[in-house]
């Protein structure tokens, strides 16, 4: 039998706010345990939540970015369960009335585009952390993370392969960073996915029983976990077994998923509206204000780069894969005052190669957009050749200075003086009689060798077009 996998994703996106969603405590990562746990984070008796406006702004930005409905009225609810790192014994979340509904995100898989429907996105608070390893024989509780704002983004079961799921997750990851609501740091847990996976006979309209893989914090794990889970479910069914609804964990060491709790063991969360928080009501004006402050979205920009700048689709897609890269590109084009294709070649070529080599992010590039633009100007005004420009760029990267300084200091200015080139060519012809003879006997290759000799003699500085021209003339 042919099987089809059906996947829906729930992604927890940690919102980039300075303080927690319901208190003024800091959200900075990596502080000593419990140093960012204020009275509200600890859930002392009598404390109350106060909603962080910035978290709401982030949610609205996301809603606008995925073309969703922004609820003018949404409701915070309590999700009740006991766990030591959940200080109140309930998590404040949104249940029946989420802030964002019905959006979509378009992904590219191979040559085909596919739209993934986003069912909803809701605001909620994160829990703390339980530290089970090596804590004087006990478990430790760190409540620094408790109350960190999250946006949980839930899709329809629209994905049909692990690859599609990963493409969606990557697209979403890019987007939330692009609009500045999440730092995207997956190691620190700023972006983590739960995957709902089921299989069914190909052609069937009915959904199979799903199992939910929790807390996947890398794209690779997402891919591996879904693939394993899919194979496991298919094997189980083919062997005549049935799938029980369950929550499972992925073990990266074994590459397997294993059940954490079954449906029977599932909590009854006893959701009800949180009486400490009034329904969240957004004004039309405030939403409009946020809309006006939104950056151009990656897909719109990608299209514009093709349409207005004439870039190949591949360049446009690459340059808009992150906001920082796009900003770098746009700033360079702006500083240059044009030449988008030249800039694109350099950003995707030399700049990307250096970054890659040093494991740096584009924002850490030692060569800033205006500096790069000044370097590229020296190519287009024939001060240096493209090849020499690479040498200058490398020097700029190590901090030798501005392009012009390096060109001067190293004497790299291109030689375009016809007399000087002619003298050089004459010398090359005189010392390479054998090559000249080869050329004259019809071997065109020898011409290129002679050009090479001339360039070498000029230490690469001779204008190659002029060398060509003079050499042809002399040999004809």
């Amino acid at each position, binding site marked *: 039998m042919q099987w089809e996998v059906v996947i829906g994703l729930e992604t927890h996106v940690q919102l980039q706010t300075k303080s927690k969603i319901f208190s003024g405590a800091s959200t900075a990562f990596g502080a000593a345990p419990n140093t960012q746990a204020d*009275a509200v984070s*600890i*859930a*002392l*008796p*009598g*404390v*109350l*939540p*106060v*909603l962080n406006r910035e978290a709401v702004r982030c949610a609205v930005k996301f809603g606008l970015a995925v073309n969703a409905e922004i609820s003018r009225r949404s409701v915070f609810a*309590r999700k*009740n369960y*006991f766990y*030591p790192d959940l*200080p*109140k*014994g*309930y998590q404040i979340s949104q249940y029946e009335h989420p802030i964002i509904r019905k959006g979509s995100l378009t992904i590219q898989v191979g040559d085909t585009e596919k739209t993934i429907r986003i069912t909803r996105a809701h605001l909620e608070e994160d829990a703390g952390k339980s530290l089970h390893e090596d804590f004087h024989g006990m478990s430790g*509780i760190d409540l620094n993370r408790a109350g960190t704002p999250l946006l949980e983004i839930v899709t329809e079961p629209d994905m049909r392969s692990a690859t599609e799921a990963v493409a969606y997750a990557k697209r979403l990851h890019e987007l939330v960073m692009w609009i500045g609501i999440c730092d995207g740091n997956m190691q620190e847990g700023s972006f983590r996915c739960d995957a709902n996976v089921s299989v069914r006979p190909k052609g069937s309209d009915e959904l199979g029983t799903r199992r939910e893989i929790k807390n996947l914090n890398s794209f690779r794990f997402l891919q591996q976990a879904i693939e394993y889970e899919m194979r496991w479910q298919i094997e189980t069914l083919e062997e005549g077994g049935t799938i029980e609804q369950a929550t499972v964990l992925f073990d990266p060491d074994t590459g397997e998923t294993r059940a954490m709790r079954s449906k029977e063991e599932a909590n*009854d969360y*006893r*959701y*009800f509206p949180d*009486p*400490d*928080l*009034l329904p969240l009501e957004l004004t039309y004006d405030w939403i409009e204000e946020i809309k006006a402050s939104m950056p151009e979205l990656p897909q719109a920009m990608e299209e514009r780069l093709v349409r207005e700048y004439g870039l190949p689709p591949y360049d446009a897609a690459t340059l808009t894969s992150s906001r920082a890269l796009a900003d770098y590109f746009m700033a360079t084009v702006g500083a240059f005052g044009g030449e988008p294709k030249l800039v694109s070649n350099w950003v995707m070529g030399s700049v990307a190669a250096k970054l890659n080599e040093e494991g740096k992010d584009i924002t850490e590039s030692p060569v800033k957009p205006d500096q790069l633009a000044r370097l590229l100007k020296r190519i287009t005004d024939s001060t240096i050749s493209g090849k020499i420009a690479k040498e200058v760029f490398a020097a700029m990267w190590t901090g030798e200075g501005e392009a012009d300084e390096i060109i001067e200091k190293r004497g790299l200015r291109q030689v375009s003086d016809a007399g000087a080139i002619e003298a050089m060519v004459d010398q090359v012809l005189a010392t390479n009689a054998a090559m000249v003879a080869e050329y004259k006997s019809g071997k065109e290759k020898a011409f290129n060798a002679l050009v090479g000799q001339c360039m070498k003699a000029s230490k690469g500085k001779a204008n190659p077009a002029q060398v060509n021209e003079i050499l042809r003339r002399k040999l004809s």
Partner: protein
Amino acid sequence: MIDSSLKQMAAALASKRISSVELTQLFLDRIDRLNPRINAFITVDPERSLTQAKAADVRIARGDAGPLTGIPIAHKDIFCAKGWRTTCGSRMLDNFIAPYDAHVISQFDQAGAVNLGKTNMDEFAMGSSNETSYFGVVRNPWDLARVPGGSSGGSAAAVAARMAPAATGTDTGGSMRQPASLCGLSGLKPTYGICSRYGMIAFASSLDQAGPMAKSAEDLAWMMNVMAGFDARDSTSLERAKEDYTRDLDRPLAGLKIGLPKEYFADGLSDGVARVVQEAIDQYRKLGAHTVEISLPNTRLSIPVYYVLAPAEASSNLSRYDGVRYGYRAPEYSDLADMYCKTRAQGFGAEVKRRILIGTYVLSAGYYDAYYLQAQKIRRLIAQDFVEAFKKCDVIMGPAAPGTAFKIGEKAHDPVAMYLEDLYTIAVNLAGLPGMSIPAGFSDGLPVGLQIIGNYFSEARMLGIGHQYQQVTDWHTRMPEGIA
């Protein structure tokens, strides 16, 4: 001095006839002497109180005293007060020292009032007799064999026995008005959102409201001027201009329209209370008010609705008492689940457990719609009853409690009989309205309260209505015999 109004005490302090330290010591001595019999206080800390009193005396000497500067006030042990043990009447918080101040506490601190101590209460404010407290029953100063009412029973008994000039309380379903009635005091539950709930340990968040308990309506007004006010730390706090709650005290009552809900004078009301309430209403007629019969048809549903909604919220609010971070933790347990079970089994009393169970049940999958949602709908109908009623009258009057103080133990094993104590008070919380009880007379030697229910934000007017009555009656000045 112990019988003086807050106004008189303020005058005595201002004129240096007495210092705050002396005044505070006077009440501390009374607590020392009377509390062993009445058990109105859980925590008294003379050193802390007197330190505050000294600071108040400095303020008074400097000439920057406010109306309550130097006056000792007792606080229900539901308010977190920095450095004070704050138990909420529960073993669960027996060892809890609050590291911060509730908004209400900081308001009194800023006003220069002295914290006289933390008063006893039903555990987590769940009870109508103060018998559910982990720290023992509170005895009614009018008859030590009887309950003071609850849950603010300690505050009521403290003021009734003149162990405190005034006290704070909270009212979720009648927890200030019923004890005020049973102890012969004035007590006001303001409109929901007037006093910040920040730092006030939650029972049922959508119903809980802090308020003052004192001898007279005038004293309540003075207390309200300190307690009320917007607080950004409570999202349900109402952002309103600061008001002067004494402004209507002298306003005459001529033309006042009093609504008398027929449902409040029906079955369940004791004859003695009915008689006293009628006499009080007659007194209002003499003061120029006239009465109109009204109906609050959904009153009978208020108790069942309350006993769905309040436990639902409580079951969630009390989840934080899990033994992990603070408060009681069972001494022995085998694993995490066992630690939770034993901690909560040992830390909570029977009434609290009963309500957690009810609340957990009504929120459970499959029951939520039938109980919680249904109750929310009826809650709106109950509120609508009042909207209709206030089209016909300015205030509503009736009994605060169906009877007078009952014997300790009399209803302790009959939760439903106990729940009926709040028959006339609960609807006010469900609607978020202000309600007040003032002393209106006696039945068989025990105090009876008159309940006055006002429209939203009409506290100042209500206090005036109480004050005018207290200008022509002396019920509020009576003191229990044997408590000298």
